[in-house]
């Protein structure tokens, strides 16, 4: 299992490069992961998506579908793709410290 340093902290990564342990996540780790994903700054809208995903994951055990995410977070599909260019669900989940989403939608 790969170990990498984010925000001065050594964290374990799973096969997809996502955090292996949820407990390793904090806001600074999120910022470092975001930079790696090509997102230099996490603004309020991005935090809104990340926090929503974390809340859903905690409740359901999987990241929400894009449809659910856009309906319930108040961030619509267009904005979501602007906030996380090139694969929003995958990127947001990784920054949120969650495993790669399992769903198809």
């Amino acid at each position, binding site marked *: 299992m790969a170990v990498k340093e984010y925000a001065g902290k050594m964290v374990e990564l799973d096969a997809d490069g996502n955090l292996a342990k949820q407990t390793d996540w904090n806001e600074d780790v999120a910022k470092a992961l975001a930079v790696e994903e090509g997102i230099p700054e996490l603004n309020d809208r991005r935090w809104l998506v990340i926090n929503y995903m974390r809340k859903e994951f905690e409740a359901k055990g999987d990241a929400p*579908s*894009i*449809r*659910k995410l*856009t309906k319930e977070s108040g961030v*619509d*599909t*267009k904005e979501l*793709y602007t906030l996380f*260019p*090139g*694969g*929003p*669900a*995958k990127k947001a989940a990784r920054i949120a410290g969650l495993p790669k989403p399992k*769903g*198809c*939608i």
Partner: protein
Amino acid sequence: MAEPIKKVSIVISRGSLEGVYPGLIMANGARMEGIEATLFFTFFGLHAVIEKKMDHLKVATVGNPAMCVPSAMGPGLPTWMGAIPGMSWFATGMMKKEIEKLDIPPIREFIEMIHDTGCEIYGCKATVDMFHLTKKDFCPQVDDIISVGQFYEKSAGSQIIFT
């Protein structure tokens, strides 16, 4: 490691519910992975983007030997029974219910959502002429009506998927 897929062009040629959804799911899935996607609707597939028809697509029950009731692992439905009036209506209702459970949107909402992800949507000119349709007959997400030649131009560097 093999070169990842960067761009797909998905052709939807059938107008039944089970003929349209796979292509839509693949287009949306591509965008979710950061893959560029283009949708091209041809022949009866056009029904999925015609304003007056897109909310009324049905499951084809005639000539479908895989049709089982009440669910996929249930006993096979004798093919002749697929022709009984109301069968298609019934199967459509069942499928729509299951689709909703998976949080897959109805066709119209799905087309809007996919278009919002940045996927371009086109109709086939030959079919539009054959069916005597005009651009006005389509939902606003249809970017243009294009010829097969233009489709190939737009698909430069794409994997083309025919459904």
